[in-house]
């Protein structure tokens, strides 16, 4: 086993910065930015060597620190405007953010104490089902109506939709292969020409329309079908390519 240095884990860049400030006993209103930047980068370096997973926010903060450091090295720009604006300390915004974060970190600590205290008190677990048996309600649905039920179901559908958007960016429910097979089957029934508009009329999603179109392009490429369009933006008619001698009706992908 390799020698390991115990490296403290931080919630985020703010947590790490606060730690460095406390460790160095620095006045938060007058942060020696070069020192802190160096120590901050050292930590990232060591964490990187130990394969500790660091979120991108740590890198963003490193850039912020370097930028502040650079601005502090530059001579103070002379503000030419008439306003007697106070010259801004490049550290100002960071200090405010650190103070705010520190405040909530301390509040979180109080919640932790309360949680610890409260975890030693136990409530009675009341079994609703048992009580229900003692007092059977005359009406098990209360004031709920069937309209409520329909409304709840709509809400569920909406939630499902939201969730699906997050989880599955591209669900390959309808494949190009499925659609080529479908188009070929439809063409058997309509040798006089299959309308593309009709083909997509039953599509339930944009994806399905796109997949259908891709399938059509694939079939054209493979020489299985040809298409005719009277005018731009008009319907596209799809026809089966006449079979040559000895060719089979099967098609395949390369």
């Amino acid at each position, binding site marked *: 086993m390799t020698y390991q240095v115990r490296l403290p884990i931080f919630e985020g860049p703010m947590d790490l910065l606060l730690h460095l400030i406390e460790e160095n006993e620095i006045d938060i209103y007058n942060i020696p930015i070069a020192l802190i930047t160096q120590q901050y980068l050292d930590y990232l370096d060591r964490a990187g060597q130990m394969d500790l997973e660091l979120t991108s926010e740590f890198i963003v903060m490193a850039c912020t620190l370097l930028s502040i450091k650079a601005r502090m090295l530059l001579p103070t720009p002379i503000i030419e405007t008439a306003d007697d604006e106070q010259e801004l300390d490049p550290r100002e915004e960071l200090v405010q953010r650190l103070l705010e974060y520190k405040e909530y970190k301390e509040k979180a600590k109080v919640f932790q104490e309360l949680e610890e205290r409260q975890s030693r008190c*136990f*409530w*009675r*677990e009341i*079994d*609703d*089902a048992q*009580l*229900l048996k*003692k*007092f059977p*309600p005359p*009406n*098990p*649905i*209360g*004031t*709920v*109506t*069937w*309209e*409520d*039920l*329909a*409304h*709840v*179901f*709509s809400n*569920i*559908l*909406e*939630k*499902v*939709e939201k*969730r*699906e958007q997050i989880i599955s960016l591209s669900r390959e429910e309808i494949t190009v292969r499925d659609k080529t097979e479908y188009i070929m089957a439809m063409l058997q029934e309509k040798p006089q020409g299959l309308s593309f508009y009709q083909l997509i009329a039953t599509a*339930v*999603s944009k994806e399905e329309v796109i997949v259908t179109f891709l399938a059509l392009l694939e079939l054209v490429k493979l020489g299985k079908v040809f298409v005719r369009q009277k005018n731009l933006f008009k319907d596209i008619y799809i026809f089966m390519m006449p079979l040559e001698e000895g060719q089979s009706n099967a098609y395949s992908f390369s």
Partner: protein
Amino acid sequence: MPTLFPDETKSIIEALLFVANEPLTIKTIAEITERSEDEVEAFLKAIKADCEREMKGFCLIEVAEGYSFVTRSEYAPYIEKLVKPRLNALTQAALETLAIIAYRQPVTKSEIDQIRGVNSDSAINTLLDRTLIEETGRKEGPGRPILYGTTQDFLKYFGLKDLKQLPLPEKTLAEKGID
């Protein structure tokens, strides 16, 4: 654990009886408090006498499986007033589960869980207890999971003649592309 004063053991036994969902045996209490069974029995007697003397809202009873605190039976009408509104109202979880079963029946528990994104065990049990849903069969396939559907009581309480009368939700499944 530190040595306890007798009174403290009595309080601990009260606390144990308070949180226990099931009657507690003398043996269990003796093990937890590290007292002999005889001592525990004496404490239980004392607790029972306290409740009787002070006319507490609850008393200690001995049932086949052990000892348990129960509310005084003469207060049942008050407890009913507390409990009834709570039991009449269907929870949001139960309502969602019922809506899914009503519109997609017959449906399995795992299908319901999948749509809701959370486990629906206790909601299903509530609905079964209230006879709003029932098992309607088994689905073919691995594990042959139970299928649920709504009951006659469901139609009765919602004032529906049959399931066709259920209003279509504002958005249909097809539009949502999950069917």
